[in-house]
């Protein structure tokens, strides 16, 4: 059994209007996605902004009311608030937010911010609690004098580390990391990612790592799901996604990875434009008549893609993959 099993998850936001506040339409932020997260692994969820990644992450951590489908944590459906309460679910499943400034209450001192989950879930003595907070600060590489300061006194990278410290405070099993480094400078990104990896090794945590950038995900994730307009278009191992991408959307994301080597910028740009052109020309092949992704079909034990069966098989054999 996997740590988390997401089955046909749908989150639709109703659009209300008129005096009686009736539902007149809905935004299908997440529209039927299925994947599993194993204990101890980092699972990547990648897609353009607006594709429903954050909504998925928030559903898993219990912040979003799901429309239908289920999320099983150790076999229990945690889409019901009642089950979450009984399990003390958020003691085990925590979140790191994209915007580190907005995710730390500007009116609270760092000690109170990091201790918040401890106070609700662990009820330590005052000294034990302070000690734990100091240890957490130390683990994420911050000094003790951070204790009585406010979030605005720290840099973006430091704040994100405070967010990491809060998320690991109760020693959780799973952390949803929603674009944890997207708002940071490149040099700081690597630093925060390294802390996250170190913590994963030491505490045996699983991550659901959300990103819009396949470049960042490459160094973090074993398994990756590609999300597009509320649906998954491709699932596979790192090898499957980076070396044998099948869906045009995945190829487009790969082409969008920024090229750091100055000498190859021109070539990179040309290949990106080529992919973009194919994307424009072949949309009808990769999406159904409503412009939505097809259901996933399996092309190898680890690799699935959202295409009609025949096309998927054909593409897979072109790519030289071993058939299931």
């Amino acid at each position: 059994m996997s740590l988390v099993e997401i089955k046909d998850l749908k989150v639709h936001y109703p659009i209300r209007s008129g005096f009686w506040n009736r539902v007149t339409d809905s935004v299908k932020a997440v529209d039927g996605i299925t994947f599993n997260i194993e204990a101890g692994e980092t699972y990547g969820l990648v897609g353009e902004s607006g594709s429903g990644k954050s909504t998925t992450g928030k559903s898993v951590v219990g912040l979003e009311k799901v429309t239908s489908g289920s999320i099983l944590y150790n076999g229990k459906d945690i889409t019901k608030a009642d089950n979450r309460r009984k399990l003390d679910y958020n003691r085990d499943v925590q979140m790191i937010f994209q915007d580190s400034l907005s995710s730390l209450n500007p009116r609270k001192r760092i000690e109170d911010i990091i201790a918040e989950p401890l106070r609700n879930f662990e009820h330590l003595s005052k000294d034990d609690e302070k000690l734990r907070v100091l240890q957490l600060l130390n683990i994420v590489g911050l000094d003790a004098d951070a204790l009585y300061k406010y979030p605005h006194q720290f840099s973006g990278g430091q704040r994100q580390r405070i967010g990491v410290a809060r998320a690991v405070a109760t020693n959780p099993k799973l952390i949803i990391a929603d674009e944890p480094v997207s708002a940071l400078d490149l040099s700081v990104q690597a630093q925060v990612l390294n802390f996250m990896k170190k913590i994963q090794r030491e505490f045996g945590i699983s991550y659901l790592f959300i990103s819009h950038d396949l470049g960042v995900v490459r160094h973090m994730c074993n398994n990756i799901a590609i999300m597009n307009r509320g649906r998954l278009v491709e699932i596979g191992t790192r090898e499957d996604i980076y070396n044998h991408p099948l869906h045009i959307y995945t190829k487009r994301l790969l082409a969008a990875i920024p090229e750091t080597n100055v000498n190859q910028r021109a070539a990179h740009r040309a290949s990106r434009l080529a992919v973009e052109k194919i994307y424009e020309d072949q949309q009808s092949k990769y999406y159904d008549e409503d412009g939505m992704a097809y259901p996933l079909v399996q092309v190898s034990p680890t690799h699935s893609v959202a295409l009609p069966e025949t096309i998927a098989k054909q593409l897979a054999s072109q790519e030289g993959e071993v058939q299931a």
Partner: protein
Amino acid sequence: MAENFEQHSDISAADLARLNQEAQAEATPSTAKIIWNEFKADKPAMAALIIVVGFIVFVMIGALFINTPKMMETNIMDYFDKPFTDGFWLGADSGGRSVAKQLIVGSRNSIGIAIGLTIISSTFGIAWGLVSGYFSGYIDWGMQRVYDFMMMLPMTMMIIVLVTIIPHYNSVSLTFIFSIFYWEGTSRLIRSRTLAETQKDYVAASKTSGTNHWKIIFKEIMPNISSLIIVDCTLSFAENIGVETGLSYLGFGLPNQTPSLGTMIANANDPSNITLYWWTWLPAALEIVVLCLSISYIGQVLRRAADSSQRQGAAD
């Protein structure tokens, strides 16, 4: 589990006291401290604060030493005594009653009502706005329909009707009657800020940290809109001094034998009073002007101080 943290950090219980002390030395001043420093730096603001606080304390205590029923007795011998005659510092009115004493007791009554009204209506309005904005959905929708209904009622007319049909009312019941109609503006203001605040990730983080809704509303969100609350309360207070005064002036405020700033200014209803017996109404009018100006000046400084701590909060 605690071992897990012991093992992976270099800090153990032995370091606790030392590190805590180091951290304390680096602690950042609180918002209250920032506001106080702002007052210390701004001399006119300090003067305004001293005037308002000093005056309120003076009339609250002074009124205790005045026998109101005796003061309100008519004494025909002192009819419109000029200031500084017969021992009347500020003269006497048409009933021969001391203007100075009426001013003290009247200020106590008017300011007392204004304070009570501000506390009740602001508390209610803030709570209403916070809850409505935080929960959104059906709760918000229902609470907003109540708000719409209250806003539809013609306020002044309702107060006059209520005051007329309630047989024996005094400053306390009057305060409550006013309060019914004075929380709406605050609630709307607070709700719109709460709607924005609730979207921020720190609220989501509090939820995933296991904090319950009420704690999130009053301990996480409310401190973040404290500058708005402080400024709104100060301005409401200045405005509320005018509320009672206005109605008493029209003759629908406190009963006749209860002096207030409004009943004193009502002396100006008589054209001959306005020019000939100016001392019967001018001190009360001046007092209101000075108080309201001082309070709104204090409000401005509070806003500036709160904003600067907010700015520091937003700065990188």
